[in-house]
């Protein structure tokens, strides 16, 4: 089974990002770039599929040279080929612009590797802007079936059997191959690279692609700002617990929960 995983590099999501009051931009200097968490789940899912069903995994990302590091990390945890679509200002593109670039990349890579992807995996969203659209838009542009928020996928002759998480429960769905899926956190964690796999990844080449000629954004970010702060709440003193509990009781009565 031939698989493509679309990767976005994002600022480390365990760091609280605040607004740089000087530049009025998110303060990202010093924050380590990492592979978007949901993309790591997608890659892990692909790696497990490869172990069972064979085939190869290609990863692709849109961005500048810095992204190569993230792609190297992907090569160390299961990817066989890595492509970077060079774009100096990928962060200024809206999801539709990114999907346009990826669409061309899919065709370019398929041409270069002389293959056809059976499955294209994306994370269900990114941890920075979280627009959760790229996978859906890419499928739409490639005219492929798509399933979102999936936690399991299994190929069966000519179709993919997919388990999708919804608010109400799970849906079992079948999609014709090839198809696109967006991956929710499954009940396993992504693997770590070993020293050996890291060494091997370092030797592999990251191939570059050029973006499609016309990418225009339909959305415009007018400005970014900090959310409003709330006025301080009422402090209840804790030195006398009976008193505190009595106050808590009156709060609950006021909130009409009794």
């Amino acid at each position: 089974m031939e698989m493509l995983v679309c990767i976005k590099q994002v600022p480390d999501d365990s760091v609280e990002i605040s607004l740089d009051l000087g530049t009025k931009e998110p303060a990202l200097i010093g924050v380590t770039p990492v592979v978007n968490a949901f993309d790591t789940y997608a890659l892990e899912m692909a790696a497990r599929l490869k172990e069972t069903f064979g085939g190869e995994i290609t990863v692709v990302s849109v961005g500048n040279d810095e992204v190569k590091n993230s792609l190297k990390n992907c090569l160390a945890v299961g990817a066989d080929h890595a492509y970077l679509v060079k774009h100096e200002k990928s962060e200024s593109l809206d999801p539709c612009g990114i999907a346009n670039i990826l669409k061309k990349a899919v065709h370019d890579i398929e041409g270069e590797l002389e293959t056809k992807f059976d499955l294209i995996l994306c994370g269900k969203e990114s941890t920075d802007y979280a627009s959760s659209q790229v996978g859906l838009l890419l499928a739409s542009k490639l005219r492929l079936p798509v399933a979102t928020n999936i936690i399991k996928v299994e190929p069966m002759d000519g179709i993919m059997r997919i388990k999708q998480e919804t608010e109400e429960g799970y849906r079992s769905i079948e999609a014709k191959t090839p198809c696109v899926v967006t991956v929710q956190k499954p009940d396993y964690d992504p693997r770590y690279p070993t020293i050996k796999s890291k060494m091997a990844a370092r030797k592999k080449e990251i191939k570059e692609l050029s973006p499609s000629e016309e990418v225009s954004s339909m959305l415009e970010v007018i400005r970014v700002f900090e959310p409003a702060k709330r006025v301080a709440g009422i402090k209840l003193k804790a030195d006398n617990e009976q008193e505190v509990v009595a106050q808590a009781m009156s709060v609950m009565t006021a909130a009409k929960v009794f």
Partner: protein
Amino acid sequence: MARLIVHQERIPDHQELINICPFGALEEQDGKVVVNAACKMCRLCIKKGPEGAMEYVEDVKKPEINKDEWKGVAVYADHVDGTIHPVTFELIGKAKEMAAVTGQEVYVLFMGNEIRDKSEEILHYGADKVFVYDKEELARFKIEPYTAVFEDFIKKVKPSSILVGATTVGRQLAPRVAARMKTGLTADCTILEMNENSDLSQIRPAFGGNIMAHIKTPNHRPQIATVRYKIMNAPARAESKSGVIVDCDMDQEMLSSHVDVIDILPKAKETFIENSDVLVVAGRGVKKEEDINMLRELADLLGGQVACTRPMAESGWMDAKYQIGLSGRTVRPKLIITCGVSGAIQFVAGMNHSDTIFAINNDPKAPIFKSAHYCLVGDFYDILPKLIAKIKEKEGV
């Protein structure tokens, strides 16, 4: 963006032209000279190259769309088997506010199977027109036919803005529709403001909620936004009905699908935390799994449920569906009691619209106290048992 056009017929010697570029941005491919990504637009090749071989073109701005052709605010009616998701009514309420700015109408798009009767309910919330597509093929949500119906609706009605609930269905449908209509979509908006020129200001959190981004769709219509449940206010249900139902039909052929729903496996029946009036939240201050029982006892007494922060969901002590926050659920209960929750911005983003926030934390500097209405600095292991006893006493249990 500007770009270069290469006029192949005007290049006597390929290599000579290629050598001009100091950045190696010109190369030969299949007997043609092409410009690659390394081009810095220095335009040296135009000046020094053969006459007319390289041409520099500024992209002409696309003709502005005629915004006057697009009128009104439409809401997608989210439902499961005809039971309308309450986010729909919240969005109708918001749509009415928005439409009032421009003096336009509010539309609702309702598609499904055997839903005609159910559409009457929407008329209690003040929509001007409810467009109903009642078709067998629409019995279960399938992305392709649903997108096709949406497209049909947009082409017929031409709404200027469209609001879609950020439910599982809405999250799949809205981007597909946006792609089909070649327009922009802003997901998970928390603030929507209509401008008099019908441009919609769409405001949404980024980077885990520390930063808000203000987004516009200046040159495209319709403007599509998704909004999570419990972000907007629920409007009151009017006793009387208003507005009209418009029955719609469309080409049957557009309703085929390449994805089939084989089976729907419901999770165990339960009330979702979004629907609870009272929530008791377990944070990492809870030291052992069985300690959650104490919180559960309090929640039971108050007729509510226990919810949790992300570390608690990740530890496996509680199911992910009880997680509040940016990567969990957005809740808006009457009362929320947080126990041992630090109040990280990603958590607060999911609950700061609650009517009454009551925080218990033993660290007086915990950020949760910035969001809470009532701040209790103390150990909840001491406080909860006393509180529980007091409530039992009051209730006479």
